């Protein structure tokens, strides 16, 4: 092959791609290089995070950096990895092919990390190799000869410790070099398959229009994994190329050639030779290692493992409920202050009501959960970057496997107890798309904090305090949480057997060494995810809030009407009446119907909506007047409305029904279509209705 030794000076600022294995410190390095100059979004058509940032050279020249999803191999097995492959192969229309590549490897784990690097060398682009985690390698007694690596590979190699910023300046200096050499590392394609590589390469050049080196790299990937994952934006293979691939496979299957195995082995052979020359294993003191192993022994222990998990989760929920209280109060008062201010600035009228009661109140009702959501993101980020998340998945895998999921679904589901939104966004770590979808579909069954006010109100209405021991109340509460959990697992099991049939995905996962994350990085990630949620859900939440407001404000009953009268004859009231036939079998009347409809904004709105409907002065602190009103509410024939059975049924409805527009908006974004959120509304609410029907009807039959 005829390779130019240097790439000529690019006429524009070079575009760099950042690639590496998961957990090699890539995000830390990216943050270090770009600071806050990052743009986070999505690759069109796939829910894979796209991060692009700008770094400045020593001379102030901007350089564009694309942070690609971490992967162990370019033979993609998940949508994230497919994006990494596609961008590097230059086959995504939405992303420019990077001119140069920065490969980050974990010094304490060279061989496996170099496998990806070896594949990247095939692309024929200038590469800078960053050997990160040098501190850990040293602690493990590994001595890495950077100069020898540089000589053997023919490219710049930089020793780094990203978490301390070591190596950043050298890296920036190297990145701003005008000419960067191409890697000269060679490895031998096994003789048994070299003919197929040549034939596939030719076909990829001629039939798929690929440049020669890219065609060769892609041919090698196809021979590693004949069915790589493709996502929206990936280019399908041309027919001719597929036929050639099939023919070779048939031939090899017949004569027993392990083509993929020999290819992978050939790469590792080359890596073995490289590391033999460059890595010296010294006498280890092994102190640190054995300490970490001991921690691991505890964290995954039969007894202590669960204790630790339980303790961490309790701390998580405790801090969500205590720490969030203050900012939630602040948000609430600022939202109402804002509404008051708008009221004072504008003339009374429909536009003003739309802004204050519709937009501000509606969005405020969602934003109020932001502190909880952020705390949850913070914890998830912390668990991820310390490495504990993988341990939790490890010990939970057996249980999750029973319903056909794997351990990675555990944390997303657990987070959903606080709020489904961070939970659903955390499903991105689940590689298998079907598993991910199942987890998303069942996550809202976990009782989130917005349901608490409803449960509390209903429990108070159900069992008058003083008469029953507190245990009954707590028991009822736990029952609701338990019901939701069973529902989630039951439906996960069902979906994995029917709609999203599939083998339980393998649980092949690295257990990364424990690391002390930088709080700054975790914070940045939290802010990033929080703003992603606001951006994603914001517009939908705003739109639906306005619609919901309009439903209660129109048609206008006139000046003299009380709020209760206004609601009663509004569209919402009419809708409440309209759905009464459907919900009557559950023991609900139209007034409860209005509460159910309003709950689509956020479930806790039920409390304020019923306050309006029953004409009670709304009071957060004191629900006694509302309780009084609920107890005295009746059907037209004088039967009491909120019988204990109805209260219970209503709670069960809130456990199962999908009633949260923010969740709908996030699911829409995460699954990239309206199909799944609509399905979710349908099946969850349908199931809620059915279950409530059974409970109410059999309860009535039994004389409750």
């Amino acid at each position, binding site marked *: 092959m005829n390779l130019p030794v240097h790439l000529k000076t690019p006429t524009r600022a070079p575009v760099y791609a950042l690639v590496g294995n998961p957990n090699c410190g890539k995000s830390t390095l990216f943050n270090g290089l770009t600071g806050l100059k990052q743009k986070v979004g999505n690759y069109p058509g796939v829910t894979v995070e796209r991060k692009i940032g700008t770094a400045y050279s020593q001379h102030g020249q901007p350089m564009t950096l694309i942070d690609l999803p971490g992967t*162990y*191999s370019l*033979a993609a*097995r998940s949508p994230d990895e497919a994006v990494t492959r596609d961008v590097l192969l230059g086959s995504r229309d939405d992303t420019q092919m990077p001119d140069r590549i920065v490969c980050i490897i974990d010094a*304490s*784990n*060279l*061989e*496996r990390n170099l*496998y990806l690097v070896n594949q990247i060398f095939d692309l024929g682009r200038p590469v800078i190799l960053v050997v990160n985690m040098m501190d850990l390698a040293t602690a*493990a007694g590994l001595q890495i000869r950077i100069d020898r690596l540089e000589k053997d590979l023919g490219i710049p190699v930089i020793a780094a410790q990203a978490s301390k910023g070591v190596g950043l300046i050298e890296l920036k200096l190297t990145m701003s070099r005008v000419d960067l050499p191409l890697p000269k590392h060679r490895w031998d394609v096994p003789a048994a398959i070299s003919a197929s590589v040549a034939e596939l390469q030719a076909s990829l050049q001629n039939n798929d229009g690929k440049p020669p080196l890219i065609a060769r790299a892609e041919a090698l990937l196809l021979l*590693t*994994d004949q069915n790589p994952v493709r996502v929206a934006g990936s280019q399908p293979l041309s027919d001719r190329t597929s036929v050639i691939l099939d023919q070779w496979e048939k031939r090899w299957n017949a004569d027993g050639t*392990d083509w*993929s*195995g020999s290819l*992978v*082995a050939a790469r*590792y052979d080359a890596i073995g030779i490289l590391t033999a020359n460059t890595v010296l294993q010294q006498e280890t003191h092994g102190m640190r290692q054995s300490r970490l*192993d001991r921690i*691991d*022994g505890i964290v*995954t*222990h*039969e007894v202590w*493992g*669960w204790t630790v998990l339980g303790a961490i989760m309790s701390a998580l929920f405790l801090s969500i409920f205590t720490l969030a209280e203050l900012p939630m109060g602040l948000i609430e008062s600022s939202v109402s202050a804002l509404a008051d201010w708008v009221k004072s600035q504008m003339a009374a009228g429909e536009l003003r009501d739309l802004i204050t009661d519709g937009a501000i109140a509606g969005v405020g009702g969602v934003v109020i959960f932001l502190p909880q959501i952020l705390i949850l993101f913070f914890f998830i980020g912390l668990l991820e970057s310390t490495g504990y998340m*993988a341990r939790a998945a*490890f*010990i939970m*895998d*057996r*249980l999750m*496997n029973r319903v056909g999921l794997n*351990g990675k679904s555990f944390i997303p589901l657990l987070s959903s107890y606080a709020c489904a939104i961070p939970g659903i966004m955390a499903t991105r770590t689940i590689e298998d798309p079907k598993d991910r979808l199942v987890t998303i579909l069942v996550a809202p069954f976990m009782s989130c904090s917005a349901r608490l006010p409803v449960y509390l109100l209903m429990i108070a209405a159900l069992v008058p305090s003083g008469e029953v021991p507190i245990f009954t109340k707590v028991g009822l509460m736990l029952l609701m949480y338990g019901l939701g959990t069973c529902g989630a697992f039951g439906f996960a099991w069902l979906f994995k057997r029917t709609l999203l049939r599939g083998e339980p995905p*393998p*649980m*092949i*996962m*690295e*257990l*990364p*060494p424990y690391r002390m994350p930088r709080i700054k990085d975790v914070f940045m990630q939290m802010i990033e995810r929080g703003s992603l949620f606001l951006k994603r859900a914001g517009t939908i939440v705003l739109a639906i809030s306005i619609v919901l407001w309009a439903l209660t404000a129109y048609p206008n009953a006139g000046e003299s009407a009380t709020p209760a009268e206004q609601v009663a004859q509004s569209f919402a009231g009419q809708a409440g009446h309209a759905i009464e036939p459907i919900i009557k079998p559950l023991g609900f009347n139209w007034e409860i119907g209005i509460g159910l409809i309003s709950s689509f904004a956020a479930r806790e709105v039920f409390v304020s909506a019923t306050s309006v409907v029953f004409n009670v002065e709304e009071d957060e602190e004191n629900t006694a007047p509302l309780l009084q009103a609920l107890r005295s509410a009746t059907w037209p024939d004088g039967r009491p409305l909120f019988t204990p059975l109805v209260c219970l049924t209503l709670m069960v409805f809130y456990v199962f029904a999908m009633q949260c527009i923010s969740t709908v908006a996030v699911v829409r974004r995460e699954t990239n279509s309206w199909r799944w959120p609509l399905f979710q509304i349908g099946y969850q609410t349908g199931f809620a209705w059915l279950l409530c029907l059974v409970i109410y009807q059999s309860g009535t039959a039994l004389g409750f």
Partner: protein
Amino acid sequence: MSDTVPLSKLSVGSSAVLREYPKSGTAFLRLREMGMLPGTRLTLVRTAPMGDPIEIKVRGYNLTLRKSEADHVIVEPESAA
């Protein structure tokens, strides 16, 4: 050649050399790309509380896999010499 056993039968704390596993299947493909090749040395570190999955150390890092996969991975235990 000494006796070989499935990886899932290896006792905790013992080391073995990988001999062979199925050529196809996405799980095995991934294992291979992560450096588990015939001849690679590995150690069974522990099993999860409920006996599954298992954790092994290979090429200096820790990896989990389920027993259902480990059943097909044939290893040759190192004699405890």
